[in-house]
C-alpha cells in the first residue's frame, strides 16, 4: 500500500485490507465538506490570529549530552547509531 510506505508503517495483509476499505471514510468526509467549502470561503489554519511571534537570538543552555543520548536505542561514541540508510538524502 503506497500510503503505508509514505507513512513508514509496516502493515499486515489483514490491516491493509481493512484500511484500504476505510479510505472511503475520507471520501465521504470530503464529499460532505465540499458541499460548503466553496472558493469564496478562505481557509483558517490558525484558530487565533496572531503574527510575528519571534524570539531573540540569545542562546539557551542545551540539554546535557547524557540526557540527549539516554533514551537512544543505540548510542555509540556520543552519537545515535542508526541502521544502514538506503535512500539518498532528499
Amino acid at each position, binding site marked *: 500500500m*503506497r500510503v503505508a*510506505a*509514505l507513512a*513508514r508503517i509496516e502493515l499486515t495483509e489483514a490491516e491493509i485490507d481493512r484500511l484500504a476499505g476505510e479510505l472511503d471514510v475520507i471520501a465521504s468526509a470530503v464529499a460532505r465538506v465540499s458541499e460548503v467549502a466553496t472558493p469564496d470561503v478562505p481557509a483558517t*489554519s*490558525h484558530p487565533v490570529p*496572531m*503574527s*510575528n*511571534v*519571534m*524570539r*531573540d*537570538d*540569545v*542562546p*539557551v543552555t*542545551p*540539554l546535557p*549530552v547524557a540526557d*540527549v*543520548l539516554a533514551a537512544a536505542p543505540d548510542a*555509540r*561514541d*556520543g*552519537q*545515535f*547509531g*542508526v*541502521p*544502514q*540508510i*538506503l*535512500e*539518498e*538524502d*532528499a
Partner: protein
Amino acid sequence: MNDVVDYEEAVAAFDPVLGIEVHVELGTRTKMFDGAPVAFGGEPNSRVTPVSLGLPGSLPKVNRAAVESAIRIGLALGCEIAESSRFARKNYFYPDMPKNFQTSQYDEPIARDGHLDVELADGTLFRVEIERAHMEEDAGKNTHVGGDAGRIHSAEYSLVDYNRAGVPLVEIVTRPITGAGARAPEVAAAYVQTLRDIFRVLDVSEARMERGNVRADVNVSLRPSPEAPLGTRTETKNVNSFRSIERAVQYEITRQAAVLLSGGTVVQETRHWHEETGETSPGRVKSDAEDYRYFPEPDLMPIVPDRAWIEELRARLPELPAARRRRLQAEWGFSDLEMRDAAGALDLIVETVAAGAAPAAARKWWTGELARVANSRGATLEELPVTPVQVAQLVALVDAGELTERLARQVLDGVLAGEGDPADVLATRGLRVVSDDGPLLAAIDDVIAANPDIVERIRAGRVQATGALVGSVMKATRGQADAGRVKELIASRLGV
C-alpha cells in the same frame, strides 16, 4: 562510466538550461526555531534542546535574527519581501531529521521575484532571474560507517549528530536560466560565487563552501533550440566548490547530449557529483520522492514584516560587490580591461590606495609582480608576507626617485623574505639609487676610458651604441644607477 560527447558538439546541438538552488547557513548565534547555540565543530549532540531534537511535546519558535538575515538577502537580490510569509511542513522520513519533517516555507516564502547580474571573467554581465528565497532548518549530520568484513553480522550503520539540526538556512531558487549557451558552466559557477560574495558583504554567513556554509544543487536540461520547450532536467548534488559546479554542469551537458544524440531520453533524477572522477552518477530513484505533503505549519504564526522595518534594512544595506566595483572603477579611472585585471585583488588594491599609492601603481604591483610571485609559490595574494601598506611604501620610494622599478623588485624580494619594510630592506641591502652624479661620473669616466672604439662610434653618430656603455656603468654600479641618468651623463661627457 557514462557516455559523453565532446562539449563543443553538445552545445552545438543543444541549448542548455540551468536551475540552481543555493542553501546558505546563516551565521546567527542560535538555531532557526530554538535557542540551541550554533557553532562550528564541537562534541556531537552537545548543542541540542528538546526542540532541535524533535522530542515529543517540543514546539518551535522563530529566530528574529534569522528572519532579518533572510529579508536582507532578499533585498540584496532585488526581491519583493512578502507582506505575509508562512512556514510549512515538508514531510519525509530520514534519520538526520528529528521530526521527520522539515519546517520550511512553501507557497508563502519571505522573498520572491528578484535577479542577480553576474559578472563573468571577461566582463560580460549575465542576468539570473531569482524566483524565491525562503527560510528553513538544516538537518543533522549522518556519518556512514562501513561494516567490518569478516564479522557475521557485519552491519553497515550510520552515526547521527544533531548539532546541525535546526541551524537556519536560506534557500535561493533561480528561475530557469536560459540564454547562457556554451557559457552555462561558467555562468553557474559565477552565479554561486557572486552569491557567496554577497553573503559575506551582508555578513549573514561566513559563506565558506568548503565548510558547507554554502551548498549548491545544480539542475541541467537540454533542448534542441532556445525556441523548443524545456527538456527533462537532472539535479546534481554534492558540488562543493565553484570549480566543481562548473565541471559538473559541463559534464551533465555532455552526458545528456550523448543520451539524446543516441536516440535515448534523459531520466529525471537526482545525480551525485564525484569530484575524483569528474562524473555524475544516479542517486536512488524514489517512488515517493516528490510527495512531501506540504501543509502550513500549525505551530508557527505568519511573519508579517513591518514595511518600515524593511525600508530601514534596505537603507542600511552595505554596498554590494557590483556597485562597489562600479564606484571604484570610476574613482580610479580604470578602463573596463584594467578593472577586470584588478578583479582578483580588489580589496588589496583598495587598501594600498588608502595607504597612499596611486591606483594604477597599486594595480600594477598586485596584478603584476606579486601575482607572479604568488603563482610560483602556489599561494594566494593574501597569503604573501607583504602588506598593502608596504606596497604603498614601495610605490612611494619609486615615485620619489629613490628606487628604479628594477631596484624596487629587489626590495620587494627582501620584504617577502621577511627583512622588514621597504625602507629597512633598502638600508640593509644598500640598494639606493645612486642619484649623486659624482660617483656616477667616476664610473662613467672609467667606462669611457675602457671602451675607446665604442666612444668612436658614438661620436660618429651611432647614438645607440651608448646602450653598451650604459650597460657597463650599470654593471659597475651593481645596478644602482638610474639608467636614464647614466645615459644623459655619458652624452654630456662625450659632448653629443
